[in-house]
């Protein structure tokens, strides 16, 4: 093995890793940014539901933005039961994009700040049976400057939630102009005495730092943006990192393990690029930002005499507490056209987090997503008893394609006892690495929140003129793969016996390995998690740079 040497290796170029690479390189560190997926460019944009979208790509089960068809995990609902092999086209696969930019390439870009009370659930509600919830080791106020930095560096448009957390500055960009759905929903919400606002989106509403404003096309969630109006890390911070000349990007580079020197200090990684040989790369510090499934998988795979069950796993915490925020939907059926085909979709939001004393947690409500024929076809509920084919179905779909509205209902999720990401005891991937085994259910605590938000969605849709509504998607303690919002599997906390990383993002008892992705999130909010991953990544970066300048990482 030949060994390159850098100051910092960042593993995973997604929502968090891209930010860390930019911050460290701009502070003068020599950085290697590794991602196991491809590096897509704007030339790869393809506004076609059959060939360009993440989920339907070529009908093959291959996800457009990774992983490929050979990658799998194993999944089960409960410990002690057999896990089944699941591929990326299976709903039980915990999926994010495996590519440079990660999930931010193809996501919808909802960019909420978590409510300040989200950081203190245990203090608010006490111990919740069946949950391992703990207060975060930091407060909202600790994270606020980094939320602000993320909003400005990445480029977020929208309005602050009128019942949201304190903030010093407005969003850097005005909201997008109202499309037909927003024009219908804003007055309806106000008639109900509510306070609707334009949701924060990682989309340019006007030219921003050299990127053009959004062209309002229908191909947003699931697609790589053809004009770079979606503020993914691939078109914002990763180019910043590369511009320094101090960061090298290694796409299609798989990391097998973090190596440890003769004194038990992590000192690099073993990786390979493309189909090349396994190589060593040395570094003074390592940042793991590979997602809430792949980060624990890598830490657990990095076994040595110093770390016999994996790095950071002294108290058997790596991979525990994994969960996600939860979502459901309500569809409204109208006798008039309510959509106009403009993307991105979400244009009117309500924030019901911590607003009702009879309800713990709570969540957000917004409309979306953009209206393309197959996306709608696969999601729009049919009247009971109607076949999914034939002339009656054709008429139904023709009638309601433009005359329905979909509301997204979010809710807090909780870390649940028994949830775990670990290594499958038997199965290995094509490279001989043990695959991740996900054991997960959603905690029943979330169900009343979702149903409560669904009730609000029905009220809003009816006020807006819907003739009828249909709910989808709430089940009590469902088996859940943590889905696209997997988080919390290497959570930050003050006690090493119940967490993996400390308040700076550094792994307890390991001086130079940090986590900077969704794994770190102690518990979910009642909303999409991405901006919190990104604020944490900025905060972790700040901590690393301070430590670096103080000489603490130069051992």
């Amino acid at each position, binding site marked *: 093995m030949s060994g390159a040497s850098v100051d910092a290796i960042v593993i995973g170029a997604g929502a968090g890793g891209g930010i860390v690479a930019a911050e460290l390189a701009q502070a003068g560190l020599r950085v290697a940014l590794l991602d196991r997926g491809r590096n897509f460019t704007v030339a790869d944009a393809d506004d*076609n*539901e*059959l*060939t360009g979208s993440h989920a339907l790509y070529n009908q093959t089960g291959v996800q457009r933005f990774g992983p490929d068809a050979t990658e799998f995990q194993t999944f089960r609902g409960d410990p002690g039961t057999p896990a089944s092999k699941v591929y990326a086209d299976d709903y039980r696969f915990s999926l994010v994009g495996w590519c440079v930019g990660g999930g931010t390439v193809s996501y919808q870009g909802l960019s909420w700040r978590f409510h300040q009370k989200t950081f203190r659930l245990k203090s608010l509600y006490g111990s919740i049976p069946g949950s391992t919830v703990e207060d975060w080791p930091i407060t909202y106020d600790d994270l606020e400057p980094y939320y602000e930095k993320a909003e400005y560096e990445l480029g977020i448009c929208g309005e602050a939630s009128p019942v949201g957390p304190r903030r010093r500055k407005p969003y850097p960009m005005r909201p997008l102009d109202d499309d037909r759905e927003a024009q219908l929903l804003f007055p309806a919400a106000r008639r109900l005495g509510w306070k609707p606002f334009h949701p924060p989106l990682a989309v340019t509403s006007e030219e921003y730092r050299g990127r053009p404003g959004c062209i309002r096309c229908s191909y947003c969630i699931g697609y790589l943006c053809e004009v770079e109006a979606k503020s993914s890390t691939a078109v914002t911070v990763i180019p910043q990192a590369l511009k320094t000349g101090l960061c090298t990007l290694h796409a299609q580079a798989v990391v097998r393990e973090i190596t440890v020197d003769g004194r038990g200090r992590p000192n690099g990684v073993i990786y390979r690029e493309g189909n090349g040989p396994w190589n060593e790369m040395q570094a003074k510090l390592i940042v793991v930002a590979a997602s809430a499934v792949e980060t624990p998988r890598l830490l657990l795979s990095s076994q040595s005499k110093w770390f016999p069950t994996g790095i950071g796993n002294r108290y058997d915490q790596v991979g525990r507490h994994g969960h996600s925020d939860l979502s459901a939907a309500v569809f409204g059926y109208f006798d008039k056209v309510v959509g106009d*085909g403009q993307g991105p979709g979400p244009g009117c939001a309500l924030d019901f987090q911590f607003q009702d004393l009879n309800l713990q947690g709570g969540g957000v409500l917004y409309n979306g997503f953009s209206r393309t*024929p*197959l996306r709608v076809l696969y999601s729009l509920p049919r009247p009971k008893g109607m076949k999914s084919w*034939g002339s009656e179905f*054709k008429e139904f*779909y023709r009638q309601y394609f433009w005359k329905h509205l979909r509301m997204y209902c979010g809710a807090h999720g909780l870390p649940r006892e028994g949830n775990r990401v670990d290594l499958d005891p038997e199965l290995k991937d094509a490279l001989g690495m043990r695959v991740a085994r996900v054991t997960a259910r959603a905690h029943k605590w979330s169900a009343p929140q979702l149903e409560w938000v669904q009730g609000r969605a029905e009220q809003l849709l009816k006020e807006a003129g819907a003739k009828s509504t249909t709910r989808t998607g709430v089940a009590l303690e469902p088996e859940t793969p943590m889905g696209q919002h997997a988080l919390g599997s290497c959570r930050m906390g003050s006690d090493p016996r119940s967490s993996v990383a400390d308040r700076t993002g550094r792994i307890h008892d390991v001086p130079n390995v940090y986590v900077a992705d969704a794994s770190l999130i102690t518990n979910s909010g009642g909303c999409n998690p991405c901006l919190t991953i990104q604020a944490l990544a900025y905060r972790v970066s700040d901590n690393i740079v301070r430590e670096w300048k103080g000489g603490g990482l130069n051992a």
Partner: protein
Amino acid sequence: MSKRNLEGTTSRRKFLHQCGICTGSLVLPLAWAKLAFPQQHMHMHSQEAGGSLGALPVAFRFFNPAQAAAVEAVTDQIIPADDQPGAKQAGVVHYIDLLLTGVRKDLGPAYIQGIQHLEALAHGMNGKAFVELPFADQTKVLEKLEHDQTPIAKGRNGGEFFGIMGRHTLEGFFGDPDHERSSAGWKVLGFSG
């Protein structure tokens, strides 16, 4: 009802529209060809200015004539014509044929055995081949197939085979056309991309 006329953003899309594949009177959508020949598509994509896939023969590549007729009749049931065209008029059977020679080669055996099973059901119920049945009787056969637990291929049962055909039909009909002929599905919805 759409936005797709903004300057400076449509050149790629225009290109895709312009290089629809013409063979005789039948014009197949480019998106379908991409699914049949992903490598050639990659090649074409890399030289967008003037690349071409060449002619795509209209002849079926996977189905024999009887299989093609049966599948076409199934697509006609999934999305029948009314005052607007259905899946048969949109040539969706060609989409499925291309899928089975391209990115969904793996489903070939399921289709061959599934069609045999469909014919057996049709004969069992009416003593005729599926295509020879009146429309309403074809509907009855498919309603039976939809809930059929009989194993047919690779662990798939009749109902699952029906689900695959149904999904492929909907995709061929409502999926992105990249060419006028198959925009039948988009016209039904009033969607323009």
